């Protein structure tokens, strides 16, 4: 099945700033199983892979709803893309890790961000079933980054040092 690659919204386009800066709304339970919504999930996964992203939130492709996808590259335990619908961070470890982040919505900008090393996320999966996931390291970082997106927050709001992006590049 070949899905459509979606246009990526960036904060460098003034008309796209609102989408990336406002709090996204909850996905109604009845929406989740509709064909359109399932297509959107698949389109986002394809878009994420093609852009070499490790995570993608719906506002980044112009949908102000609480949906994000995360690449299996984020953690060895993931065998397929992780779909988070209406995610909530319910717990986080007190210890933080500093790491370099970038973002498809802020192209060519990278920075060091302190994130909780371990977080617990509650969300719905793509069939609408609730689940709880504890992630550490990179997965924890990506989940925090994506949940931030759904609240209009970008990694640049949390960095105190802009970097070259060298750590992230292959």
């Amino acid at each position, binding site marked *: 099945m070949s899905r459509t690659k979606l246009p990526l919204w960036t*904060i*460098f386009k*003034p008309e796209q*700033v*609102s989408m990336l*800066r*406002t*709090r996204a709304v909850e996905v109604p339970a009845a929406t989740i199983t509709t064909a359109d919504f399932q297509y959107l999930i698949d389109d986002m996964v394809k878009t994420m892979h093609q852009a070499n992203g490790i995570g993608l939130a719906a506002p980044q492709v112009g949908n102000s709803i609480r949906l994000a996808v995360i690449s299996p590259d984020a953690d060895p335990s993931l065998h397929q893309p992780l779909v988070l619908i209406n995610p909530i961070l319910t717990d986080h470890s007190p210890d933080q890790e500093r790491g370099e982040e970038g973002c498809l919505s*802020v192209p060519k*900008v990278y920075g060091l961000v302190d994130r909780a090393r371990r977080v617990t996320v509650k969300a719905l999966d793509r069939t609408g079933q609730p689940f709880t996931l504890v992630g550490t390291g990179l997965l924890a970082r990506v989940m925090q980054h994506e949940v931030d997106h759904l*609240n*209009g*927050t*970008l990694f*640049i*709001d*949390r*960095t*105190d040092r*802009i970097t070259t992006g060298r750590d992230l590049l292959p």
Partner: protein
Amino acid sequence: MKHRLVIFGSSAFGLPAFSVMAKHPAMEVVGVISQPDRPQGRHHELTPTPVSAWARESSLPLWQFPSLQESAIQERLAALRPDIALVAAYGLILPSAVLSIPSRGCINIHGSLLPRHRGASPIAAAIAEGDAMAGISYMLMDAGVDTGPVIHKYALPLHADITHPELEQALSDLAGKTIQTAIDGWLDGTYVPVAQDNQLATRCSRLTKEDGRAHWDSGRRLSRLIRAYTPWPGVWTEWNGQAIKLLAATYEATTPTAKPGTVVQLEQRRWGIMCGDGIIVPSLVQFPGKKPQPAATVPGSYPTFIGTQLN
């Protein structure tokens, strides 16, 4: 139960955020506090601040106190029984007696990523210092100057040729887009204010005309100041005892071939001013009593200007 909100603001900077909060279903604006109407322009007509004008148009209760230091005024504010106050570009100090009135505090929208650029000219400071990022901070005000804990920050990468009016507009819009999330997050406990790291703090003071005087040691810095200080105080230099404004210019890194401050002819009709680290090439300048003019027309109008040694 709606939250009783008081707004403090004068310049247009806070308007996008104020408008959003005035429409917020959980908020009731019980007072808008702005500076008094002041004479402005050639005919010295009494002109309301942009926030006063907005409050009148929106039929919101407006108070224009000349200062907040008197106890009678503070009692008047307390009588509004505010739960929360929002402060942006108000221009007067809020004394401790006022800060303690709203039960959920006074929240300031500051035009920088605190603790960087505490003080009166944060937007100019971000451009002048060549920062990679600017932004806004939602700060719970305390008695110090921009020293309170920060509820949330929103950043904006700066492109290399941004000017003060452009950045001010972008930050003002950013506040409009983020205010509701930030304030709701504060009220419902999602965002916990974090104390600022004083070690990383920098200060910026209110700009004066003298801040705009050109120094020729660094052209790189001068080109940033021209963008940071437009439209006021601008960057200017003295020639024959009169101020010439450099309205727009680019910096070119070259090995200096003359004393810093020397006005040198370049190829074709271009000219520049030598600096310690290269050359500043103006594109738009303004001579006293004249309209702004393209730099290329200067040698024609002022033949003796080329070759001058500026202080």
